[in-house]
């Protein structure tokens, strides 16, 4: 069996999230170097604050300032920081109960080594230089042995509150399409199309995915199909896709390759868009060095009879 194909796959997205009134106040506060909590019905102060009581689900809106100093309630030493984490030198993850709060906030503690960290140790906020209204406005915590800092008496009202955050997310993968699709992609690079026949119902699937969705069994017998095929149905695309160098309108079609029992899809070229029709006979066109067909063009054969492809619609 030839080696399966692999390729890097990066999934990256800047999630834009709107904030509710409590989250907005908290993150705006961080921008202005003020830490806010929220008071619950039973007079507990939650930091970080939430909009609904985690016990009673009661709506919470009563903002209370707490101190930027606090106590570590648990910790873990991270000797190999990972991408995106608050510090790029070894640090401790900490849950910190700020002075005046009843719950703890997760963040990083900048400390020289694990022996300098313990539960119960006193810490204070180290503010980021550039603050935008995000949890990362707290750069990290740092050890602190002074008095508890006094809150400034902030009301929680801000003139220009932050109303949203952009949370960038990126995950890196190595994608592999598996055995059946690897065989298909490799054959395409050779200007051939191969499907797989179901051992049970004898249908030929193109592209093959290794299984027959009707019978639920593995397919493995390779069958060469095409190169010619028949347009079974199509649509006319009028909207230009970003980064796609194709003039609109163009036709995107389902194409039943000769010998296949499933239509695949592809773009139709070499014919005006308004002359494409069901039954049109087409063949794939590879561009120079292309690993897959760029588009399909008319072969010039007479149209296929509807009866020959109606099962493949």
């Amino acid at each position, binding site marked *: 069996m030839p080696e399966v194909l692999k390729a890097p796959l990066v999934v990256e997205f800047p999630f834009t999230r709107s904030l509710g009134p409590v989250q907005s106040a908290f993150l705006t506060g961080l921008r202005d170097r003020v830490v806010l909590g929220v008071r619950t019905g039973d007079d507990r102060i939650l930091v970080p604050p939430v909009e609904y009581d985690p016990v009673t689900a009661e709506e919470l809106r009563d903002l209370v300032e707490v101190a930027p100093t606090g106590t570590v309630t648990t910790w*873990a*030493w991270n000797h190999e920081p990972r991408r995106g984490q608050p510090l790029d030198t070894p640090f401790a*993850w900490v849950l910190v109960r700020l002075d005046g709060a009843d719950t703890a*906030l997760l963040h990083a503690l900048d400390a020289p080594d694990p022996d300098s960290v313990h539960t119960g140790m006193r810490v204070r906020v180290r503010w980021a230089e550039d603050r935008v209204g995000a949890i990362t406005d707290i750069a990290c915590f740092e050890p602190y042995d002074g008095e508890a800092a006094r809150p400034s008496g902030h009301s929680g009202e801000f003139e220009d509150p932050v109303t949203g955050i952009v949370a960038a997310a990126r995950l890196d993968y190595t994608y*592999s399409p*598996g055995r059946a699709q690897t065989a298909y992609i490799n054959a395409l690079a050779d200007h051939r199309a191969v499907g797989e026949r179901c051992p049970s119902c004898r249908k030929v699937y193109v592209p093959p995915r*290794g299984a027959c*969705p009707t019978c*639920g069994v593995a397919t493995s017998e390779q069958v060469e199909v095409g190169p010619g095929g028949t347009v079974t149905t199509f649509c006319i695309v009028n909207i230009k896709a970003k980064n796609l160098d194709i003039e609109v309108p163009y036709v995107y079609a389902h194409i039943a390759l000769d010998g296949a029992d499933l239509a695949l899809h592809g773009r139709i070229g070499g014919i005006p868009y308004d002359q494409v029709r069901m039954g049109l006979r087409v063949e794939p066109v590879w561009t120079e060095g292309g690993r897959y067909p760029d588009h399909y063009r008319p072969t010039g054969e007479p149209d296929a009879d509807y009866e020959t492809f109606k099962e493949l619609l």
Partner: protein
Amino acid sequence: MSRDIAVIAVAQSDILRSTAEQSEVEMLMPVLHDVLDRTGLKTADIGFTCSGSCDYLAGRAFSFTLALDGVGAWPPISESHVEMDGAWALYEAWTKLLSGDADTALVYAYGKSSPGSVRDVLTRQLDPYYVAPLWPDSVALAALQAQALIDAGDTDEPALAEIAARSRATDNPRAQLRGSVPQGAYAVRPLRTGDCPPIGDGAAAVILAAGERARELCPRPAWIRGIDHRIEAHGLGVRDLTDSPSTRLAAEKAGAFERPVDTAELHAPFTSQEVVLRKALGLDDSVRVNPSGGALAANPMMAAGLIRIGEAASRIHRGESDRALAHATSGPCLQQNLVAVLEGDPR
């Protein structure tokens, strides 16, 4: 309507560090065939199908739809999916059977962690405003919980190492890590690599059947006497990380405390989490905990919880247990927990 529902067949793949040569459906299909073969049922005989998986592991949207090819989804079948561990898919199937809408159900789950970095992937399930932007990975969060347990006097590093060694001293041929595995260096202190689960790919499937159908298809059905799941606040600093009240409540609602169990399959990916779960469930040394090796021996994401139910049921099928507890977890530091109580017919 009240009906007795049982796990009547169980199958799973070997759990491997990487299955890059197989697509998800290619990995899953032998497991589906295996579980069907054990009952003689065909896919067309199954009343309801439910699966658990997660797109973030593969990095592709709707990845579960491709896996559906493996169950023969044409002509149309009654089907559902949960974007979490298959244990929760089993819960959905159980309610479907309870309602009388179906007499048999196929539940499957799979996860391929090998394409990505699962520690990073799991950060994306955290609170997106206050926590996820800091990228705290799953090992770091478990380590905070472990330190809290050590500070509370509930465990220490040698005790955690014993849990690791006992879990991997399993004869489970499907397990990824077996035998003597070094505790290794700190991953995130106080957790060492030996305290953490292996990262692996794998799939599992079970078949449920109701009432007489279960007796026809299985010599000793594993009757689900109760099943319940509960969740806790997402804010880690709101919770007491040394306890798991959601597990305790789910166990109570599932009837786990009505009579002692002889076996417990706990989904504790980290050694320290077994300490929390034993305490929450009141398990003493009379209970066999994780004879399969548990998640410390094999932790295919999204399938490991379903496998706990499957392992507990298998022991009942084989007559090695009469009353077993199975547990599944999801989220950081045991945030959400499911407990099922399984029993064999009296002998």
